[in-house]
């Protein structure tokens, strides 16, 4: 670890997230610690409600509400994100950090054309002309392996399938070539075959663009396919952390053992 200290992209230290919108304060994330190196794919697994999304939202800067208290540190290239001003955060959002959500159905604006939505981050962060943005968007749509980018550009979200929409979301998140892509259950709403394609696409993005990916899923087999390292979360706590193979082949915690036992056997056969 010590020698690659310099290419740490993201460092989360003692992250705590507490909700105060009910009578009793509710801790969603407790003392979470992890690092993500440049070019690495890190998986976060855990059952639903274990605080995966909240961790991701905190990193992306979505938890700016008064009912939520956060403590700890989120260092992105050494910059503290948790306490920084929204205006400062905005210069990173979409530019250095891209996010893909679980539901491609709702993540796109229903009344805007696909091309417009994919180009939005460029419009915000760069001074490119209309034509340059259009060209870049078409290039991006092609690179997420959508057929007929020109056609897709002019379409509205409801005219696309779930898988196509998720590709569009990935294109929109990647348009400014961010250093970090946060993918929060990006395949959960999709069919198994489409899932595999999206996973392949993420791997491709990681290899070609060198983008670090924080891949969140409740599906261990997907994490195992894609990630080098994994952290296992439960009830807001990190219960286990390590290299994928080691964690899954030799789980130390009871909870991880249960998760591993729940993976359908077919995936193991495929893997070998």
């Amino acid at each position, binding site marked *: 670890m010590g020698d690659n200290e310099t290419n740490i992209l993201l460092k989360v230290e003692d992250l705590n997230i507490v909700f105060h*919108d009910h009578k009793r304060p509710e801790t969603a994330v407790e003392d979470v610690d992890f690092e993500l190196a440049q070019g690495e794919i890190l998986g976060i697994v855990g059952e639903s409600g274990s605080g995966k999304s909240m961790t991701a939202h905190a990193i*992306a*800067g*979505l938890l700016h509400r*008064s*009912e939520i208290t956060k403590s700890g540190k989120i260092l992105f290239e050494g910059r503290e994100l948790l306490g920084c001003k929204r205006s400062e955060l*905005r*210069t*990173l*959002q*979409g*530019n250095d*950090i*891209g*996010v893909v*959500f679980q*539901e491609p159905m*709702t*993540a*796109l*604006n*229903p*009344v*805007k054309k696909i091309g417009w939505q994919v180009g*939005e*981050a460029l419009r*915000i*962060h760069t001074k490119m002309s209309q034509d340059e943005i259009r060209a870049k968007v078409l290039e991006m749509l092609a690179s997420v392996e959508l057929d007929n980018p020109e056609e897709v550009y002019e379409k509205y979200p409801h005219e696309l399938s779930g898988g196509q929409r998720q590709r569009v*979301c990935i294109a*929109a*998140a990647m348009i400014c070539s961010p250093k970090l892509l946060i993918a929060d259950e990006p395949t959960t709403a999709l069919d198994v075959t489409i899932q595999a394609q999206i996973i392949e696409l993420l791997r491709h993005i990681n290899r070609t663009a060198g983008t670090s990916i924080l891949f969140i899923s409740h599906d261990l087999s997907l994490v195992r396919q894609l990630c080098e390292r994994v952290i296992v979360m439960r009830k807001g706590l990190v219960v286990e952390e390590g290299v994928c193979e080691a964690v899954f082949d030799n789980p130390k915690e009871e909870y991880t053992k249960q998760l591993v036992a729940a993976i359908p056997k077919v995936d193991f056969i495929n893997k070998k």
Partner: protein
Amino acid sequence: MANTNMGKTITAKAQNKKAFGLKLKIFKDKKTNFYVGLGITAFFLLITIVGYFWTPYNPNAMDVDAKYSAMSFTHLFGCDNFGRDIFSRVVSGLGTTFFVGLGTVLIGGLVGIIIGAICGYFGGLVDEIGMRIMDALYAFPSLLLALVFVSLLGSGKYQVIIALGIAFIPSFSRIVRAEYMRCRDLDYVKSARLFGASHFRVIFVHILPNITPVLVSSAIIGFNNAVLAEAGLSFLGIGVQPPDASLGEMLSSAQSFLFSTPWYALCPGIVMIIMILGVSLMAEGVE
């Protein structure tokens, strides 16, 4: 917090209806409603536009010989107590009515959208303060509120527009606020924020186009209410001032001749009713 938001969202539509009372449904089919309404409205709009350039008689010209004359081919709607052609006055009055209606919706709508969007999007203290001001404004019947403004600003076409426009802000802002509360936590809004969009951009570029159906139907119903309110103000003698014609002003002047020359009151009255009907049908179809 989450729960109360949900409750408010559900009542948004109901609130829309409550805030703007008038609603009509004649045909079963929404499309028929809309097209019949559109037809009627377009017809009146056409007459208004033609009337702007040409009316059979000068609406303010008095013909002593034609005083109180009944409906005929020379004077389609007859003449009033000054011998003015009622048809010409109705046509030019329609123009005033449209102008006041549109102006009111424009002022009330624009300010209402801004206030409603900011309150609904940000929530919290901003919302609390903004909505209490709107509540206070809404607590006055809009006619009474308009009365206050007219007495402050004087009477006339433009004063009526400003007065009614201000009186209409609360209804618009409430509807818009409810829509923004519904939209602000949706995934595509989060996505927009995650692209680094400013609040301003999220509010007006990303969310606003999504609520246009609601805006259009509120604007149409608001237009109707403005027409009625203008008629009410003019009827009370504090709206559009003579010799400017407006439908409400004509109704007001016709009071004294209700039995001797009933067409004086009936003609502008019926025209107004049909016009309101047309616009209401259109509003029904839009939803």
